[in-house]
């Protein structure tokens, strides 16, 4: 383990592998001074913070893309071989997910838009897969990464706010896009200005209220997912601090419970996305 005290252990496990730009004449953790600004891996949490916005969480991006590719690869594989005869086991599984999402969209989405259902399926399966990474014991992959010379490694992309906000910003852009497309830019502006109080004198008040309501949507999406996953991760790390022979008594129930949380959070993110986009399609 790279850390000695419990606090350091926890902090260490909550730090992403960061690849970012350090400014010129920056004194690194080992005392060396950067001769010029350059991109490098952060060796400490402090370095990662000092990189500011110009940095990537390599682990978050890597694992989320890996999960996305796994999802699309699997589904594309099934889609290409999809038969109208009796489906095999894999196709059956995919079709169960497929019908589940289709029913969700049919029940919750009141407009007509062929993009919503595949969008919802992407969100659901992708988030589900990313969340599922949490069931891998907390030290397992970081330890392998450690042997490979990587100081920090956090495998669950949804315990990184960048990961969840990245998705919710995508959803937010879609909400804005479809609002403007369905209602027209003028109609959308009018809706923001004249609800909930239909009076010209209350336009500023309405605007503040509506824009706040709009921004709350991606914020709540991202923070709900992040909060749940992060909290669960912290508990897993705390359990990992116990003596090894007793860990199973807590980690097993917690993991079983998390099977539910993982699915539920993916489901909530999906259904809220559908509802928000349905609202974006509604004319007032």
């Amino acid at each position, binding site marked *: 383990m790279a850390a000695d005290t419990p606090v350091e252990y926890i902090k260490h496990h909550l730090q992403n592998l960061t690849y970012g730009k350090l400014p010129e004449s920056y004194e690194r953790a080992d005392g060396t001074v950067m001769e010029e600004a350059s991109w490098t891996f952060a060796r400490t949490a402090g370095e990662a913070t000092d990189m500011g916005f110009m940095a990537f*969480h390599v682990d978050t991006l890597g694992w989320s893309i890996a999960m996305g590719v796994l999802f699309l690869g699997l589904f*594309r594989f099934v*889609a290409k071989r999809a038969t109208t*005869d009796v489906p095999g086991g894999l196709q059956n599984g995919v*079709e169960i997910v*497929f019908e589940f999402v289709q029913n969700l969209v049919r029940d919750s989405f009141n407009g007509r838009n062929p993009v919503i259902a*595949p*969008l919802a399926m992407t969100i659901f399966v992708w988030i589900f897969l990313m969340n599922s990474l949490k069931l891998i014991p907390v030290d397992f992959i970081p330890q392998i990464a450690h042997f490979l010379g990587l100081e920090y490694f956090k495998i669950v992309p949804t315990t990184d706010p960048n*990961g969840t906000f990245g998705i919710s*910003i995508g959803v937010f852009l879609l909400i804005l896009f479809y609002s403007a497309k369905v209602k027209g830019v003028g109609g959308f502006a009018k809706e923001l200005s004249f609800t909930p109080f239909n009076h010209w004198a209350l336009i500023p008040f309405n605007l503040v209220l509506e824009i706040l309501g709009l921004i709350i949507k991606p914020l709540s999406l991202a923070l709900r997912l992040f909060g749940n996953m992060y909290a669960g991760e912290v508990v897993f790390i705390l359990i990992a601090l116990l003596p090894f022979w007793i860990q199973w008594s807590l980690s097993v129930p917690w993991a079983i419970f998390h099977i539910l949380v993982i699915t539920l959070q993916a489901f909530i993110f999906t259904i809220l996305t559908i509802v928000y986009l349905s609202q974006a399609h509604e004319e007032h």
Partner: protein
Amino acid sequence: MNINLTLIGQTIAFAIFVWFCVKYVWPPITGAMSARQKKIADGLSAADRASHDLELAQEKAAQEMRKAKEEAAALVDQANKRAAQIVEASKADARTEGEKLIEQARAEIQQESVQAREALRAEVANLAIAGAEKILETSVDAKAHSKMLDKLAAEL
């Protein structure tokens, strides 16, 4: 937990995944599933139709069977009647034939008895002449007395 470029990277990845799913994953699966749905619906209606057809066929078969039975019964009836007729006819034939035979036999008997009587008569006439010759010791002129003799013979 720093917010950084990861955010944008994640958004781009998300956009690409959604695009790929919309374009390459969703349509073939939807297509296959709706095609299967149609197939199943078709199969079910075909099964319905088949069972209906079966019912009709059974009904028709029963009808045919009934008709065939009736026909057979009619045929047997007819045959019986015909047989009875033939038997009757042959009985009648046999009777007339027999009667005819009896008639013939009777006629023959009659004829023969007439012939026998004729012969007997001639014989008797001869015997009478011979007897008379003996009695008279003279020959009777057959020619002269033939009238009388014929008369005698006719009386026998």
